[in-house]
């Protein structure tokens, strides 16, 4: 059975709507994805029939909710090749997952002056600011990989950058601006040599192609439900179980304890230790349904489709005069996220005119301001694709850019 984008699109109710009198052309999936009816139905059914709090009650509703919540954990674990479900911690988004590690692993590593954390210039602010703050708290030093002119991680200084002082390396798996997919094997090998932990920000990779944590050989990954057909309010931290077991808690409260007295508390094992309070139950279940949906279609199929769309988009955009593409120019080693500039027109204006034509792209610094600075611009326009994107939508984008040039010509 081959991939049929028209059939896929039927699962997404939002594609029935118009924007400013034009059919919706949604090219902003790197920002947040649309949701298939299969995910919405599972969430609705849960709330209408099985809603109860988890892990706390012996009653039927509580038991049903707990089973569904834990089943979602198992699905997510299988989806990323985790050794066991208990390695999957539900957070509210990628950002919380990364902050959790910055606090808890930071504490475990007992960081201090002289220690180094390594990130890259390609990071989303969510994988940048938490490490800045960690360094502020502990006196450790933040260092980073640069970006090459082609939009790839500059690993030329790898051995110097990742050294005996390095305690943790955290880089993005796929850039949300440049589309670059980082092959982290050399980096991981070097980190292992010096005994540093490795975290990958997989917010843009897990939704779009097969990711296997064991193959990657890293210690932590973070990703977020709303970018992978799931609801808002749910994210995932995956970590090696032995590491998680040693980490102190981050958020504290109900459900993460073993026993509590006024003077002292002991903590539950992972994942409970890191899931304080009532978790996003319906949202986790929705993410489980999204994983089912993605698996049903096949992550390989999805990746292949996006590669085709990306190839087509790169061709079409290159053909528009005055358009400059940032990031890898061919589909190899990159995903379906293409940022560009239109000479002489500010991205805000590009985005506004496209929106008037129903074409939804993102403009701005994409929460990755250092990437814009690296390429010498204050902002970029970004079109990003997913399993439901069609070549017709790319055509609409190209036509829209002609209109942009007309207005500002």
């Amino acid at each position, binding site marked *: 059975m081959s991939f049929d984008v028209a059939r896929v699109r039927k699962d997404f109710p939002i594609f029935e709507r118009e924007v400013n009198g034009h059919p919706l052309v949604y090219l902003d999936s790197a920002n947040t994805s649309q949701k298939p009816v299969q995910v919405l139905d599972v969430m609705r059914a849960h709330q209408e029939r099985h809603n109860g709090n988890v892990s706390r009650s012996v009653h039927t509703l509580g038991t049903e909710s707990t089973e569904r919540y834990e089943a979602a954990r198992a699905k997510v674990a299988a989806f990323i090749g985790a050794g066991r479900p208990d390695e999957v911690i539900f957070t509210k988004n990628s950002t919380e997952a990364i902050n959790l590690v910055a606090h808890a692993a930071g504490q475990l590593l007992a960081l201090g002056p002289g220690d180094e954390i390594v990130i890259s210039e390609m990071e989303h602010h969510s994988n940048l600011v938490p490490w800045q703050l960690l360094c502020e708290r502990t006196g450790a030093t933040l260092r980073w990989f640069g970006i090459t002119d082609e939009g790839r991680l500059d690993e030329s200084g790898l051995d110097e950058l990742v050294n005996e002082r390095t305690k943790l390396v955290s880089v993005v798996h796929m850039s949300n601006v440049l589309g670059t997919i980082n092959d982290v094997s050399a980096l991981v090998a070097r980190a292992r040599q010096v005994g540093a932990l490795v975290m990958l920000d997989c917010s843009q990779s897990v939704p779009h192609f097969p990711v296997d944590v064991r193959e990657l050989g890293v210690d932590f990954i973070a990703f977020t439900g709303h970018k992978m057909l799931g609801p808002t309010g749910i994210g995932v931290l995956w970590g090696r179980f032995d590491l998680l077991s040693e980490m102190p808690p981050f958020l504290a409260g109900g459900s993460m304890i073993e*026993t509590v007295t006024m003077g002292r508390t002991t903590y539950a094992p992972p994942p409970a230790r890191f899931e304080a309070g009532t978790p996003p139950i319906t949202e986790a279940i929705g993410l489980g349904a999204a994983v089912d949906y993605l698996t049903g279609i096949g992550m390989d199929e999805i990746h292949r489709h996006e590669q085709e769309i990306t190839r087509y988009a790169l061709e079409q955009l290159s053909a528009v005069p005055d358009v400059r593409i940032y990031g890898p120019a061919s589909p190899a080693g990159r995903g379906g996220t293409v940022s560009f500039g239109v000479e002489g027109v500010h991205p805000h204006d590009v985005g506004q005119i496209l929106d008037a034509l129903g074409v939804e792209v993102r403009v701005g610094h994409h929460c990755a301001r250092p990437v814009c600075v690296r390429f010498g611009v204050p902002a970029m326009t970004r079109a990003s694709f997913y399993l439901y994107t069609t070549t017709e939508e790319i055509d609409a984008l190209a036509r829209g850019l002609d209109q942009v040039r007309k207005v500002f010509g």
Partner: protein
Amino acid sequence: MMLDGLYQDIILDHYKHPHGRGLRERFDGEAHHVNPTCGDEITVRVNADLSEISYDGLGCSISQASASVLHELLQGRDAHDAGEIHQAFVELMQGRGQVEPDEEMLGDGIAFAGVAKFPARVKCALLPWMAFKDAAARAGVEVGASPEVKA
């Protein structure tokens, strides 16, 4: 009513008339386990030859009866037999009601077959068994690698 499977007379009997309850002074290993969800607690003490297994705790009928049955089944056994029985009980509990219990090996323990259908109560039934395993290990006795139990 659905409870028949859970509150078998055997279980209620062990709950109301527990065997071996009350901690002995002399022991080689001790473990204290808590069920964080409900606050059930148990302390188990064992001698290195398993000639004595004593316990005390606070908890529901399932966890208390389970401790009483454990005492009855394991006290005086050798490490090998205790390990086998331990494993059989854990498997029964984790079988979601699909495992056929071996009466010869599990004795009154077969009454817990119905508990396996109530996921929230499985950990009650297992609480004394997990504490026993730890106490035994501290007394130098390995009772086999039973599958890990989720709190």
